[in-house]
């Protein structure tokens, strides 16, 4: 995948303007996100080397991912690795939006549940209640963030070949069938040839 296309993958695109359009909730979330701490001293180290996510973000996205998709805790490592690989090539604006989203989820416990502990410090049962709160919220902006998290988790998990068998999906057919009668697609030509042809015509 080349850079430009990869970076478009999963463009969460929670731009200021768009989030604001989801109403007052959007304004509130943005203002809140801006004042949140971003350090990760208190997060356990991650086994794999990360290309985009910080330890803190890895913890948030993987804990949320396994809760939302109902996966065992053991799936966290591969889920996080896969999401990290997808986010690394996003354009800087989208990357900062993704970071903001994860920060808001991590610290939103204070705002929405009046809990002194952040998301990653909650028990699994508390995490479920908290994330369900986002899914069912009356604030459009919170539901949007929930959807974005779910889509990110789905992409991180169900794109892995290892997950196919568990849902009875047989995966790509490439290499499994013989296809005859293919079109002979034109081979692109270099610029000099195009310019010469244009001049000649």
């Amino acid at each position, binding site marked *: 995948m080349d850079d430009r296309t990869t970076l478009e993958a999963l463009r969460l695109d929670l731009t200021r303007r768009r989030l604001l359009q989801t109403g007052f909730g959007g304004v509130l979330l943005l203002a809140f996100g801006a004042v949140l701490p971003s350090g990760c001293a208190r997060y356990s180290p991650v086994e794999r080397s990360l290309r985009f996510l910080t330890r803190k973000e890895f913890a948030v996205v993987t804990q949320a991912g396994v809760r*939302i998709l109902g996966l065992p805790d053991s799936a966290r490592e591969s889920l996080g690795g896969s999401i990290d690989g997808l986010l690394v090539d996003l354009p800087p604006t989208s990357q900062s939006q993704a970071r903001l989203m994860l920060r808001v989820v991590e610290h939103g416990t204070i705002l929405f549940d009046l809990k002194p502990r952040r998301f990653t410090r909650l028990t699994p049962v508390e995490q*479920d209640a908290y994330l369900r709160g986002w899914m069912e919220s009356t604030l459009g902006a919170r539901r949007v963030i929930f959807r974005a998290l779910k889509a990110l988790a789905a992409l991180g998990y169900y794109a892995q070949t290892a997950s196919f068998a568990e849902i009875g999906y047989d995966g790509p057919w490439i290499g499994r069938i013989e296809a005859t009668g293919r079109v002979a697609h034109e081979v692109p030509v270099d610029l000099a040839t195009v310019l010469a042809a244009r001049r000649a015509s």
Partner: protein
Amino acid sequence: MILDTGTVDADVELRADVCVIGSGAGGAVAAAELAEAGYSVVLVEDGPYLHGEDFVQREEVMYPRLYREGGTRATADYTVLVSQGRAVGGSTVVSFCLCVRPPRPLLGYWSRHLGLAGLEHEAMHPFFRRVEKRIGAQRILPEQVNGNSAKLRQGSEKLGYRGYIPLHNRVDCLLTGFCALGCTYDRKGDMLTTYVPAASRAGAVIVPDCEITQVRTDKGRVTGAVGVFRRSRTGTEHALTVTARVVVLAAGAINSPRIWRQSRLPDQADAVGRNLRLQPQVVVTALYPEPVESWKGIPQGYVVDEFLTMGGRSAGSGYLLVPAFAHPVAAASMLPGYGDEHRELMGLYPRLGAIAVLLHDHTRGRLELEEAGPPAVSYRLGGSDEDRLLDALAKAADISFAAGAEKVFLPYNQMVTITKRGAYQPIRDRGVRVNDPLFLSYQPQGTLRMGRDRRKAVVDPNGEAHAVRGLFVADASVFPTSVAVPAQVTVMALATRTAQHIVDHADRYF
């Protein structure tokens, strides 16, 4: 010929009779028709030139490669996910190949009541015929109707609803079911295998990986277009300048108005970017006792048109019901529920079937167009559309039960399950709110609408801009109302007609 943009190492200037912007259903057709009529054509496409085994049948690779904004383009409040292709061949490369002409009464309404003479069915018939022949549209065989489509057929026949096996532009389909990720085996009659090569054979130059940013004009006449290469040998963004006497804008219903605005073209009618119709879809999922393996085979092999009501004096109303399904990533992000219940549902993947409601919408959205950055899409479903949609959810559930479903899952964030036919109160209770349910749109349209009156419309009935001589629009932007059915053949037929008009009136332009 197709330019290998990896060899571009400087700014490029090209001269042609016609510059076509966008190589999808509208642009590719216009380019081929004009090139075959003997005009020199440059066809510029923002997306890459991909084909055959570039389509690797994996979602995480193909969504970002083939879809605009990686498949995440959405309305401003995230209620509707707007899918458009971004590649040589445009959205037709990812289409499900369903070929449906607009209802006859709708064309009658456009022609008689909206002043679009020449768009009535009889007059359009030759254009549809021509297009259908060139893209290989034919009725799929009953044995090609896949498990999911068969359920829609079975349920609706049982309830006495009108439906049919549709035409598809696919030839010797291998039934792998990866249509939405591009056809690895070239079995689609998409623009990539039909009109684009035809344009090239007739001498057109096809320029992929190049985003047109501006249409140029001088004293009310179009003079060409400029763009920027997204890929080059030097790694920098070189400019493309095309000098042309005719420009055909066919960048799709969101990007064409964007280019219009970036170019500061006149908007006397204050209509650019308005009148947006999305034909929004929602999907009702059903659990069957036996495997239906909905991801395999032809995705949309049956159409129920019982609930589309057409009358000659209005644009009509209602919806189509078509089969719908998705590969695991898209299915997992769209299926309702949380945690274990979501995982359980995914575990039932082979037994799931789904019906999409395709709404013939009256809601008018609009694009917020700024000179820089992608447009924000504003669209909030109006009252009568909302009522129809809620009715449609119940009808889709009804059909699923009639086809033997054990349970039906509604398209909300939360898991809302219906276990008994007729127990549809949850639909009324929940209604429609921002981002819940999630809608999909595969056919944005109407944002540079066609009309005789220059005070109300952007282009005239031939697709030519009221305010700029030689500038034509030939994509889904021109529809005056929702077209009620999947849009590809209508876009192609209108583009053929526009090309014909240019050829017939060549002395005005060349």
